[in-house]
């Protein structure tokens, strides 16, 4: 019985809840002289939920640490999308990554997605860009 409960808990903790915050689509071009090669770029950073941390610490009778976490939370106020991350530059090099995927610059069908994968306490804050690179036929 204990083994089954443990396995179930492990299963729950390793499966994430996906949340979609923002999607935008651009123009899509299909051309008879070009092949559309799909590409995708995914950048992510670990976000930390102080609310989850505080709740877990309180549940495990660690009241001082829970209080400290709540005080830290006062220094992280503001509009939020997903959990806060501790580096802001993880999605800054998208321009370079796009040209690496498609050096010719013939990019179409761009979709920008902002989503997150939530786990207990932590989450993956993801920025995903998908698109097509138009490559001339015969190359």
């Amino acid at each position, binding site marked *: 019985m204990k083994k089954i409960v443990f396995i179930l808990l492990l299963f729950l903790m390793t499966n994430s809840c996906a949340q979609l915050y*923002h999607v*935008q689509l651009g123009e899509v*071009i299909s*051309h008879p*002289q*070009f092949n559309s090669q799909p590409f995708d770029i995914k950048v992510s950073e670990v976000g930390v939920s102080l609310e989850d941390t505080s709740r877990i610490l309180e549940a495990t009778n660690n009241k001082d640490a829970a209080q400290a976490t709540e005080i830290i939370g006062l220094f992280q106020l503001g*509009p939020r999308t997903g959990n806060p991350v501790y580096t802001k530059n993880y999605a800054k090099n998208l321009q370079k990554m796009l040209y690496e995927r498609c050096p010719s610059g*013939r990019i179409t069908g761009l979709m920008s997605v902002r989503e997150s994968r939530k786990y207990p306490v932590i989450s993956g804050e993801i920025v995903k860009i998908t698109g097509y690179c*138009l490559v001339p036929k015969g190359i």
Partner: protein
Amino acid sequence: MKHPLYILLAALFFFSGCVSLNSLSLTSIPKNREKQVRIEKEKFIFLGFNFDNDFINTASEDLRRQCPNGKVTGLLTKDENINYFLYIFWKKRITATGFCVPMGDLAKGEKNRRGTASASEEPSEESELQ
């Protein structure tokens, strides 16, 4: 004497609203930026009683009207919330600012790319990609 002043200050404070940005988008920016076009659509909402978003349906039409025989591009679109009082009274505002590139300019650019004298043809996607 003091009370009306405080009331006035509080009124000014609340009616100016707290503005927050929900999202933005920007399309590619043209070379010709002589003519700027702008639209603004807003809707006043009480609590969460918003039964449709039809106020934005005429946004494209308004841009098209400001730019007849041209292409609207370099569009910066902002989606904002203006909170007057605890989101009991608030407003949704969409603004779009861009540039109108006349068709003549587009055809001229096409002629330069092709290197021919034929300016009568409409710009096509083929030559933009090659």
